[in-house]
């Protein structure tokens, strides 16, 4: 395997290791050996998602926008190969395959027991050799339109996107990943090709393989199979433009009426100027999740009170997501009384900022996070997807457990103080039709 560098990352707590090589093209390959497992799993990911809608690609002179929903549309398009739909080809080998587009990544994956290398070859080939046939592009519009309508009947998704549209004025996180029926009608082969050239460059991609396999065989096979436009490594550059996002929200409240039994409520807070990679990104992400868990988990005083008062149900939760320079918190769930819940949540948040975090709670929660993280390593899919996610952010998944262990109480208290900016607050409410 000439021209490749190989490192091994080990974690003694988890008793896991991941091996790493870089192809001359710049493609990063990771392999996690899992002796004894029957399932073998691989995912090929691009650091490219729905937020990348304005960019200057290789060889382009100006940043130019693309229609909303194109990253997701491109994901669908790649499935069409000259030999037929790639899912049929995986099916012939008995493999399960899928793909997903998020705000910041696109991932193609398969899982199989037998014939792993047939499937890995297929995965590498179809991701690296797209065909943009105009008639297939047109046909796909009907399917994606139905996918969009399906989401528009999903109150959870409508409420979530309603919150993001309200929190953010300009950042593309406020735009639905799949776009709209109108925006996808403007997509054509040429624009798809432009996005592909810009973002599916080997230096912007990661191949992750996990299972009971021989390490040398995995790396050799991938190195031989991945043509990945060899030699292009040095010439690639991309400039992603995200419009500057003000600290203020677009609007304080989103409301929609849908066929639901009970109102669905989310309270959100935005952050701008969030680090987008490295240790700072990780400790901020972890400390924020830790803070939210302390404030709103089932073990919290707040949950106990809200549940007793029947303002919330079992689905009540809080989450944090950071992406492309912004971050946001979303807290809520089903409630009979959205206004009452909002009022009480805001009072509780003000109270937290005064009180801080007790040492006993902090230590107990740390145990919970450690245990939860170890448990996740039962899942091959978790290891593959999270390892890739953190690598795209210039981090190693194994760093998470060490960062967790070293997380200080002061950092979490800082998060509790600064997470809930009054000017960055918005609410989203889905109300029943009648």
């Amino acid at each position: 395997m000439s021209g490749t560098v190989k490192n091994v990352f080990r974690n003694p707590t988890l008793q896991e290791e991941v091996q790493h090589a870089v192809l001359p093209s710049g493609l990063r390959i990771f392999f996690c050996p899992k002796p004894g497992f029957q399932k073998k799993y691989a995912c090929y990911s691009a650091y490219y998602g729905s937020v990348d809608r304005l960019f200057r690609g290789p060889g382009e002179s100006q940043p130019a926008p693309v229609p909303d929903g194109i990253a997701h549309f491109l994901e669908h398009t790649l499935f069409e190969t000259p030999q037929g739909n790639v899912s049929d080809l995986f099916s012939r080998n008995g493999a399960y395959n899928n793909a997903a587009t998020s705000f910041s990544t696109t991932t193609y994956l398969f899982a199989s027991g037998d014939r792993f290398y047939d499937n890995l070859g297929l995965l590498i080939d179809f991701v690296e050799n797209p065909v943009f046939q105009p008639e297939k592009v047109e046909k796909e519009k009907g399917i994606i339109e139905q996918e969009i309508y399906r989401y528009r009947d999903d109150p959870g998704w409508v409420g979530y996107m309603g919150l993001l549209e309200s929190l953010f004025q300009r950042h593309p996180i406020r735009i639905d990943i799949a776009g709209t029926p109108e925006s996808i009608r403007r997509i054509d082969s040429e624009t798809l090709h432009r996005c592909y050239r810009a973002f599916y460059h080997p230096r912007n991609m990661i191949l992750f393989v996990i299972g009971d396999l021989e390490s040398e065989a995995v790396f050799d096979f991938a190195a031989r199979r991945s043509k990945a436009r060899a030699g292009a490594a040095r010439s690639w550059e991309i400039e992603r433009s995200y419009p500057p996002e003000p600290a203020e929200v677009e609007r304080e409240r989103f409301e929609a009426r849908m066929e639901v039994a009970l109102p669905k409520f989310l309270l959100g807070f935005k952050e701008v100027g969030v680090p987008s990679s490295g240790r700072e990104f990780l400790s901020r992400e972890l400390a924020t999740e830790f803070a939210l868990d302390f404030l709103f988990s089932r073990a919290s005083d707040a949950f106990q009170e809200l549940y007793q008062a029947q303002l919330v149900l079992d689905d009540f939760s809080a989450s944090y997501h950071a992406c492309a320079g912004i971050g946001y918190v979303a807290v809520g769930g089903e409630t009979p009384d959205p206004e009452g819940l909002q009022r009480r949540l805001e009072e509780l948040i003000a109270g937290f900022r005064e009180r801080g975090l007790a040492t006993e709670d902090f230590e107990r929660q740390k145990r919970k996070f450690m245990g939860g993280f170890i448990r996740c390593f039962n899942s091959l899919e978790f290891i593959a997807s999270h390892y890739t996610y953190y690598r795209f952010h210039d981090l190693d998944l194994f760093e998470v457990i060490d960062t967790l262990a070293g997380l200080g109480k002061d950092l979490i208290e800082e998060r509790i103080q600064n997470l809930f900016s009054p000017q960055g607050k918005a609410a989203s409410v889905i109300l029943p039709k009648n």
Partner: protein
Amino acid sequence: MSSPADLRFQRFPLCPGVHLSINSTRKLKTVLVKLFFTGDLDGSVTRKVLVPMALRRGTRNFPTLQAIARHLESLYGASLADGVLKIGEWHVISFRLEAVNGRFLPGRQEVFQDALRFLKEMIFDPFLERGSFRAQEVAQEKHNLGRLIESLVDDKDQYAAERLIREMCPDEPYRLYEYGDAAQLPAIDAAGLTREWGAWVRAYPLEIYVAGDVEPVAMRDLFAGVFGEPRRNGFQPAGLPPPVAAGKTRFVEERLAVNQGKLGLGFRHGITYARGDFEAAVLMNGILGSFSHSKLFQNVREKASLAYDAHSALEKTKGLLFILSGIAVGNYQKALDIILAQVEALKRGDISEAELGSTRESFDNQLQMLKDNFSSLMEVDFVWRRHGQSFDLESYRRRLREVTGERIAEAARKLELDTVYFLRN
């Protein structure tokens, strides 16, 4: 590390009505436990579902929701959840406990035994006031269950699937929604619910499964000490439901303010785990609508571009088959025609080599990968056992591989269309 013992559960009787099945594996970083209490799908469904909700509210030593949550957090985030299964006309309450194996924890702390003791306490030793669940908490959980039942409508796919069943099986227990009926809630009080708990928690047959890097004999002794109390009054769940013939096809339409229509078809075929050519029915459903190469996905989505999703599901205890697809409302007739044409093609034996080969390979791979999924393995083993069959993964794989196109067509010819349900705007 992958030995044949890895694939099978070792089963031990703990006492009359209670069995323990152990899978000793080094693949897991946790120890996983599942409990299945089997009752009947009948008028008690709502009450039975409410019992674990009341149990979650407090135990003798951890009397509040918060005390329980904190205790589980201190056990390195042990997770404890309850669930409901509808298997034909049986109604199963399950509990799932998962705790990190001590060999991954600082100082190799053993948390599993504490977690297991807590699981027992939650089920058998709830917080009682004068021998009864607390009235206020029962009232709250009744309310919560009511909301849960009503919120079925929030997920239009699930809602349509349930509505189809209700329309199709009006005189069979199978019509009942596994989470119960909101109309029954007002009649339930704390004392009655406590009686319901007492009636099933110590009476219903209990199957316990455990998987992880554990020593089987030590585990058996541990569980015998914790769950070794014999079942009382020898409750036996009902036998297998008799086959029901499809009458004249019924067409049902329902209107809600939706963007996308949901078309559901219900068929009867009568093939079950215990009756008829089971493996052929599984392959038949695979070719029809389990995979992306299946007839429904290919013809409704890929060729006609009518839907994002079109799939079929096989019910294996009563012998039913359901098809569900999300379509534009205006395409109702077109989609229905294409779907029915796929069923007719199957009946004619119109099955290509590629369809048969891909379906065989896909099931074969699924079963191979199932060997890593202990939570699913537990459920599969339990369900087969419920039907008086033993689940041997390798021999089942072999039997599926041997199914021919003719046997599949034969199974398909048993499909009788019973009900067509359309959710539209």
